[in-house]
């Protein structure tokens, strides 16, 4: 088992005819993901290396049976692309695009939460990889193998770093989920951890947070109340000064709010082990699984 993406994933890529969209979409197909369609308005009827392109997501769902959409379009068009996929009945939308205006995401988020048919992961995320089953996004799959560690993170490369340290200790992953570095993302740590909790293959959950917002603090409460599996956490940004955006639009300490120290404390107070660096996280994970 795994969560969110697997052998049943039928992927449509919004922006498949673009440079990034075709590079990563085809890369995902080579990994074994069932890439059934692309969508680019006015390019319907064409194909990208044999993958049919449609004018609308609705057509891709009706004619190619897509159930998962990856959004790879530029920021001004991304909110629209997410809403189109949701309107077409796609169950899971994964948005890789970085730089979507925060107000657009407020509207998208509020709308999607009202109609629970569609789950959004991202934006500004590396995607989701279920090793050995499916890869949707830009995660370099060759570092990861099948296993029992569920990994959820606000950051891409940091996830690869931690995943790789786990791999060196002989651990693989059920699924790796990048939830994204924006202030408003479709799925929270809690949403993903709830899935890992009910996934029989996942025996340990590693969560990788960073400065900004209060999602990690809320997650600490949730873990204490509702998660039976061991959780190991990492928080990045202890040295970040207040008021500065550290790369990710959502990674900002506002006054005294959103600090790494507060997050680590909140998690530790609820019994979650927090590693001080990626190596300590991998060590703690090994111990928890020993």
């Amino acid at each position: 088992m795994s969560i969110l993406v697997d052998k049943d994933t039928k992927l449509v890529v919004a922006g498949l005819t673009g440079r990034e969209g075709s590079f990563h979409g085809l890369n995902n197909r080579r990994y074994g993901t069932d890439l059934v369609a692309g969508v680019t308005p006015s390019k319907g009827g064409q194909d990208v290396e044999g993958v049919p392109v449609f004018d609308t997501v609705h057509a891709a769902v009706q004619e190619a049976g897509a159930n998962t959409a990856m959004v790879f379009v530029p920021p001004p068009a991304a909110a629209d692309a997410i809403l189109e996929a949701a309107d077409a009945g796609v169950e899971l939308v994964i948005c890789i695009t970085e730089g979507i205006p925060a107000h657009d995401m407020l509207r998208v988020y509020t709308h999607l939460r009202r109609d629970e048919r569609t789950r959004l992961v991202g934006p500004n995320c590396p995607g989701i990889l279920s090793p050995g089953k499916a890869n949707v996004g830009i995660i370099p799959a060759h570092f990861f193998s099948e296993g029992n560690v569920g990994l959820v993170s606000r950051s891409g490369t940091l996830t690869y770093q931690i995943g790789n340290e786990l791999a060196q200790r002989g651990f693989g992953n059920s699924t790796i989920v990048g939830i994204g570095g924006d202030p408003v993302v479709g799925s929270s740590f809690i949403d993903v951890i709830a899935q890992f909790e009910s996934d029989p293959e996942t025996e340990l959950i590693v969560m990788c947070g960073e400065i900004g917002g209060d999602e990690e603090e809320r997650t600490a409460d949730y873990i204490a109340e509702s998660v039976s599996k061991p959780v190991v956490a990492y928080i990045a940004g202890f040295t970040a000064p207040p008021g500065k955006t550290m790369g990710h639009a959502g990674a900002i300490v506002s006054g005294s709010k959103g600090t790494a120290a507060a997050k680590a404390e909140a998690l530790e107070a609820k019994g979650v082990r927090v590693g001080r660096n990626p190596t300590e996280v991998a060590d703690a994970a090994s111990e928890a699984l020993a």
Partner: protein
Amino acid sequence: MDLLEYQGKQLFARHGVPIPEGRPAATIEEAVIAADEVGYPVVIKAQVLIGGRGKAGGIKLANDREEAERHAKAIIGMDIHGFTVHQLYVEKASDIAEEYYAAVVFDRGAKQPMVMLSRMGGMEVEEIAEKDPTAIARLHVDPLVGFQAFHGRRLAFESGIAEDVIRPVGTMLERLYEAFVGEDAMLLEVNPLLVTGDREVVALDAKVTLDGNALYRHPETAELRNTGAEDPQERMARERGLTYVKLDGNVGILGNGAGLVMSTLDVVAQAGGRPANFLDAGGGSKAEEISNAVEVILANPKVTGVLFNIFGGITRCDEVANGLITAFGSLDISVPFVVRLDGTNDEEGRRLLADADLPNVHVEKTMLEAASRAVELAGEAPPEDADRPGPSAGADPDADPEQ
């Protein structure tokens, strides 16, 4: 992106939020002309992106031309908590009957805008919350419904403002909300929101933060970026399309991916060093971008050593190595470099570096080893800046009470 007070007020005015009459001025002469036009008494206000300018002597009342000139002369060029005053705002003096507080904030926890109103203004919102938590009314607005008249009434009644100004304050909140959405703001703060002796309601100050990701649809506001207030290296980095934040240590940092770079800074601090910057070279960095980034890092004179921490996913380690080799070819580099390359094409990258045999470049295998080595080679950090505020995990007075 933060706006200066006068820029924020111009934005307010576009959305029908009442403001006192005023004019920006960049020189003493302009300030005097502006004061004559506005009519005395006027207030001369330093335009800087930091609070506490009143106490620092950056806001002064002038009753005539001679006073206006004297105050303008004193304020322009003055240093306010590390920010030099390049710009003044000359504003008609207001007579103050009541000072309230109003704000619209992007509440990322609730994922809704939150509108706040308080009958106590003219002090920091944290201070209001401490003095009298009941004095602040807060309300979330459904972004798909928008601000309604009842929101304004509820806030007005619950905050306990004077009965006779409930309607105009409600109208101001409605317009502030329109501005918040229309301008893609992350924060609009009016402190104080003034009720004059004639019972007129105006925004006496304006604190505005806009979403940098939305500037493409507000080209006129995008031009307002306060390049004068920007750190020179941060400006250089922005012009080169690099994500860079200057810090106050001496270990220059380059990594790929925001999370990994933050983690690198932390690991350097754990090893006893102090990072000089955050620099995310981004995914898929090419040699030229790496070489550009090295130039930005080394433009900071405090840097006495540099750490490269790369975990290649889309980024290829051989490209990073080539970038570093290019940088050594074109720049005069005298500080030690520690390089850790892992992930895509890492062996190729390390081989390129070994073949190039760059002076004082050290390759380490793991992130932790690389951090320790970089700290050791960079040597002692310069003395700590005493007035730089550190992050604290203290009280959280303006948090939403419902959370």
